[in-house]
């Protein structure tokens, strides 16, 4: 059924800390590795060792330079930006699906694709502004992040390992997993404390995953509002006589 389930209390998702992500791509590689062999796999690549390899990854890490205007001029900050399915509360990728292959789980809000029903029409990928879905040319069906649903409930795994592969792999703990529907959960508190935000909320799909913005830098350069460089002021009358003369002479 591609009509959405009624809103559920439980909203499993990820919180990604852009302040400490170092852009190592370990999450993307761990994701590819797990999902190639997990319940939804494989994730075959075309021409994997050739000149132009291509294939589906559920997680892609972008690297951006953010140019800020500060009191001491311009400054560039690097922000690494992992991008994957946000498991939206009202996802259009589910409602546009003509076959019922795309669905949102009522119990925890995870958005999944039923590989046996997908006809590979790609309308869901067109409907997603976040680029969460990629079609597998080899399998002919749409693939996407499963939030490692085959790990997080997997009782054959050690309880510590029952989290998405990307979260487990992150060497800087920039990725957090939990219930964003519960205001008292650790990750909900993290979002509240760090003013986590949703991507492109204007589409109205209500992403569950949140991003934590980079913290203000502690290098003494306050970020000035663009276009208003701060003027230094000097009261000439308070200077000693020699300096007052110097200032006047130099100001001519």
């Amino acid at each position, binding site marked *: 059924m*591609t*009509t*959405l389930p009624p809103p559920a209390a439980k909203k499993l998702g990820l919180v990604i800390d*852009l302040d400490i992500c170092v*852009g190592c791509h370990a999450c993307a590689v761990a994701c590819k590795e797990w999902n190639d062999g997990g319940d939804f796999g494989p994730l075959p690549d075309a021409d994997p060792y050739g000149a*132009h*390899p*291509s294939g589906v*990854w559920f997680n*892609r890490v*972008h*690297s*951006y*330079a*953010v*140019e*800020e*205007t500060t009191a001491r001029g311009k400054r560039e*900050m*690097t*922000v690494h*930006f992992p*991008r994957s399915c946000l498991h939206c509360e009202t996802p*259009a990728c*589910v*409602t*546009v*699906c*003509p*076959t*019922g*292959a795309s669905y949102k789980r009522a119990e925890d809000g995870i958005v999944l694709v039923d590989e046996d*029903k*997908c*006809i*590979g*029409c*790609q*309308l869901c*990928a*067109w*409907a*997603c*502004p*976040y*680029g969460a879905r*990629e*079609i*597998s*040319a080899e*399998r*002919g069906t749409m693939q996407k992040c499963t939030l490692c649903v085959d790990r997080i409930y997997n009782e054959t795994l050690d309880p510590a390992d029952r989290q998405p592969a990307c979260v487990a792999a992150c060497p800087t703990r920039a990725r957090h997993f939990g219930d964003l529907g519960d205001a008292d959960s650790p990750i909900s508190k993290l979002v509240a404390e760090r003013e986590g*935000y949703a*991507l*492109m909320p204007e*589409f*109205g799909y209500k992403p569950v995953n949140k991003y934590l*913005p*980079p913290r203000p830098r502690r290098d003494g350069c306050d*970020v000035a509002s663009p276009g208003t460089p701060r003027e230094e002021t000097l009261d000439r009358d308070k200077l000693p006589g020699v300096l007052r003369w110097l200032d006047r002479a130099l100001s001519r």
Partner: protein
Amino acid sequence: MRPTFSIIFFTVLSGAGYGLVFLVAISLLYAPALLAQLAQFGSAADLDALAGRMRLTCEVALAIGALLATAGLLCSVGHLGKPLRAWRAFSQWRSSWLSREGVASVLAFVPMFGLLVAMFCDTDIRSNGVAIAATALACLCAITVFCTGRIYSSLKPIRAWHNGYVVPGYFLFAFYAGALWIAALYTMPITLSPLAIPIGTLYQFNAFVIAPLAVGLKLAYWRSLAQAAKPDTGDATGLRRLGSVRSFEQPHTEENYLTHEMGFVLARKHSRRLRTIAALLIIGAPLAVWPLSVVAGDFAAWVVVLLGMLGVFVERWLFFAEARHAVIAFYGR
């Protein structure tokens, strides 16, 4: 967006097919009134002969329309990664416009085949059964074209599709192409007969009302696209609050599905020239019938079909190729 030929052929051919079938249904509804008007000029036997020739005309046009629609639908199946599962697409009509389009397009074949069989069995086109089937057929054709437009206009991440110009455009171009086809079919020697729809009037209506409306709509649409805000990397990532955002390293060295499918820039580079070609062909084709028929006779109508369909094809190619998907902002393109 990558202009996949399977989808362009699907929307152009099925649009023309359902447009043509719609006009056949309308002419079947209009036929009894026309025959009643002619009753004073001839005997009952003459009228019956006339109705028979009208039936033949409609039968040929309906069969061609069904073929066009079928060809279009088959092209859309060719776009699927798993074509053998296409039947599953009829299940989610409660939420999906693509599913609704599938259901409506197939439902339209019920009265279409009914009428074809009835006319093959020499049923009088003035009968009530024909009128009921023709009414249902006209409605289902309109619903199908509406659903086709809604498939695209319901997709918010594609600004060029998510607007009020798209569905009226699909209607106008379906009517336009259907009218060119029906006019050409009604001039064939096999079907040559006094017609329920007078062909001269249809050409005039298409040339002076539908084509200018369609091109005017496209001009307004293109202008609105030029004025629309283009979300950039700062908007997509939410990092605009910190400053201006520039992508300095891509997530992957090779193309992936997203950059291949949604990062198509060729059309935007040549859009000016292609838009002019599309507009001139669409406006020019129905006007060309009068000078062309002086030199080419009845064959002119088929040249006009070719020119008009080419115009609609270029318009549809641009509709897909010029559209920019929101996800491309993440790549800074």
